[in-house]
C-alpha cells in the first residue's frame, strides 16, 4: 500500500488530499469536492496540465495572442508543446477558440486562442 500527500490544484482552495493506492483501488481522502478526487487519481496515474502561452500575431493590433491547450495534456509533454507554440505564428484576425495548432506535439490536443486580436490599423 502506497500513500501520497497532494495539494489539489483543481481550484484555488488548494485542499490537502491523501491518496492511498493498493493493487486494485485508489482511495482519496481530504478532498472537499468531486474535482479533488478526479485530480488526485489522475495525478498518481497520469498527471496532466493545461499549458498556457502566447503566440506571435502577424498584422494584428497586438503583437501576441494568448493561447492554451484546449484540454489538459500529459505533464511529460509540456516542453514539447512549448517548442511548437514558440515557433508558431498566426495571421490576424484571431478569435477566442480559434485553433492555432492542431494536435500539438502529438498529444491529440489543439492549441486554441484565448483572446480576440483584430487586424492592426497599419
Amino acid at each position, binding site marked *: 500500500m502506497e500513500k501520497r500527500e497532494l495539494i489539489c*490544484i483543481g481550484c*484555488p482552495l*488548494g485542499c490537502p488530499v491523501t491518496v492511498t493506492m493498493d493493487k486494485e483501488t485508489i482511495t482519496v481522502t481530504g478532498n472537499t469536492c468531486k474535482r479533488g478526487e478526479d485530480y488526485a487519481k489522475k495525478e498518481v496515474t497520469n498527471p496532466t496540465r493545461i499549458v498556457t*502561452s*502566447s503566440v506571435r500575431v502577424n498584422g494584428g493590433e497586438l*503583437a501576441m495572442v494568448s493561447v492554451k491547450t484546449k484540454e489538459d495534456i500529459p505533464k511529460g509533454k509540456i516542453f514539447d508543446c512549448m517548442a511548437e507554440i*514558440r515557433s508558431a505564428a498566426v495571421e490576424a484576425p484571431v478569435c477566442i477558440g480559434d485553433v492555432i495548432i492542431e494536435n500539438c506535439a502529438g498529444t491529440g490536443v489543439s492549441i486554441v486562442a484565448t483572446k480576440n486580436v483584430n487586424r492592426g490599423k497599419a
Partner: protein
Amino acid sequence: MLKEVHDIVIIGGGPAGLAAAVAARKAGVQDILILERDSSLGGILNQCIHNGFGLHTFKEELTGPEYASRYIAMVEEEKIPYRLNTMVIDINENREVTVISRENGMETIQAGAVILAMGCRERPRGALNIPGYRPAGIYSAGTAQRLMNIEGLSVGKEVVILGSGDIGLIMARRMTLEGAKVKVVAELMPYSGGLKRNIVQCLNDYGIPLKLSHTVVDIQGKERVTGITLAEVGPDRKPIPGTEEHYSCDTLLLSVGLIPENELTRGAGVEMNRVTSGPNVNDQLETSAEGIFACGNVLHVHDLVDYVSEEATLAGTNAAAYVQNRRSEGEAHPVTLKAENGIRYTVPQTIDMEHMNDKVVVRFRVADVYKDRYVSVYFDGERVAHRKKKVLAPGEMEQVILKKEELQKYPDLKEIVFCTEVE
C-alpha cells in the same frame, strides 16, 4: 467649458469596473460611462494568460483574457459606453471627474455616482530597500509579465524571483516555459503569499526551489544584473550573518506585494484605511464621500478575480440605487466592524443596520498562518459565531456572511468584532 454629465462614471475598465457597469445597467441605470486608461478593456487580466479564473463565477476554468472577454461581451451587449486611452487625473468630493485623452484633451465630467475600480499596483524594490547596485534587469513581476505576454519580448535568461506572491509564482513557470532558467524563488516570510495550487503547479512541477524565510541582501552588476546574494532571515526578518548564498543571474523579478492604486481615492478626500491602503467603506461599498463607491483591488487586494466581480456587482447595484434615489428612508444605525487578534482588517468597515441588505459579505485577511483556529464574531461582546478552520493563511481572503435578521436581534448593536481564537 460645457460640462458633460453622467449618472454613473466608473473609473477603470478591468474586472471590477466591467462587473460594476453590468450590474448598474441591470439595476436600470441607462447613463453609465466607463473610463479606461489602456487601449482595451479587461485591465490586468489581459496579461494574466494563465488559467484558473472563473470557477466561482462561470463554473469553469478560464484564462485571464477569456474571463475578461465574458464581461466585455456583457458590456457590449448592454451597449454600455466606454472610453479607452483616457486617464482620470482627478476626482473631487463633488464627484467631478477630470480626464485627459488624446482625442478629447482635458475634460471635466459630472457624475451622479462614481465607482472607483482602478485596481492595484505592485510594490517596487524601494519598499524593501534592497542594498546593492541599480542595474537593468530588475523588474516587478507584473512588468515582466506584460513585456512577455503582451509584447512578446524576453526579459531575461537566468532568473531569481523575490517574493512568492501569485504573480511571482506564475512568472516562475512562465519564464521556465519560455526557456529561461529560474534558479530560486525566495520569500521573506516563513510562508508563501501565493495560493497553494500555484506552488504545486508553478514551482514543484518544474523543480524550482522555494526558499522561505530568505531575502535578497545584495544586487550585483553595474549595467545589467550579474548576480544576487540571498540570505536566511531570522524571526525578526533580519538577515542572519553567515547564511549568504550567491546566485548568478541576469534578472531579478520582484513579487513583493500589491497595493491599491489609491492616488485618485486619496485625492477625492475620502477616509482611507491604513491596513488595506484603500478607502473605508460601509456595507453599500460607499466611501466616506457620498455617492463615491469602491470595489475590487482598489478597495482591498483580492486573491481571486471571482470575488472582485462579486464585490463589483454589489457596488454597481448600490450605486444604481443611489442615483435612482431608491435608498430607503429612516435614520442610519451605524455599526462599526473591528478586526482583532489575528485578523488584519475587514471590508466593509461599517454597516448601517437600518439600510443594510438582507446579507452582507464581510471579507478579511489574517495576519499569519494559523492551523485549527476558530474565526469568531462578537456582537457587542457576545460571541455569535465560532467557526473552526483547518488552515488560515494571509495569502487567502476569508469571508463571513452577516444576516440582517441576526443583527436585528441586537437593537442597540454598536460594534461587531472579528477575531481568531485558539479555542
